């Protein structure tokens, strides 16, 4: 069964304290891995798409990496405004419509 597991469930950091969030997946034929940011009471906001092992993408203090079994979202010198839930999703390797499997997210709190 296709599955996405995110860890930790929650993470508390001090401002400037770098860390990484993990997304491990089991899916037959990965066709894309997505990272989203979600603020409380709002819809997910797209961050990155990764397509193949070894690929990396960066945006401001965030960097996403991908291996054959997991992805990491590295947060460098975080600020309080980076506090949010970060969601990972994978696209299943079947023809047809874009069916995504989501993890349950990592709640990040960055304290000043």
């Amino acid at each position, binding site marked *: 069964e296709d599955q996405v597991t995110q860890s930790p469930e929650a993470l508390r950091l001090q401002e400037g304290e770098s860390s990484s969030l993990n997304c491990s997946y089991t899916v037959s034929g990965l066709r894309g891995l997505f990272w989203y940011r979600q603020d409380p009471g709002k*819809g*997910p906001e*797209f961050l990155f798409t990764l397509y193949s092992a070894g690929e990396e993408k960066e945006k401001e203090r965030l960097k996403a990496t991908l291996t054959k079994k997991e992805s990491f979202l590295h947060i460098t010198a975080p600020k309080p405004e980076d506090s949010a839930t970060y969601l990972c999703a994978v696209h299943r390797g079947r023809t047809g419509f874009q*069916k995504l499997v989501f993890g*349950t997210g990592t709640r990040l709190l960055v304290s000043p």
Partner: protein
Amino acid sequence: DVKVTQSSRYLVKRTGEKVFLECVQDMDHENMFWYRQDPGLGLRLIYFSYDVKMKEKGDIPEGYSVSREKKERFSLILESASTNQTSMYLCASSTLGRATDTQYFGPGTRLTVL
């Protein structure tokens, strides 16, 4: 920028009522999706549409139906609302043709069924 809007941010309904949730996107996307999000369960796909009047069931379609009469608009219908349908409902859209194209989400509708 992609803009996906949902008709209500908060909605309170009574058990047995028929509920309509509407979603509109302004980027001429072919694909539209309805998800529900519950604590500890993540986002789960209810229904998907890849063209006007076309629909596919997702993982949890029971108790829901959908309508897509125009390309930009996708409606989720709860035929007879029940308390276990209290949830955050999220609409998303994406382009057709590339299976890995990004899904863009609306702000969500928090539905409470009493």
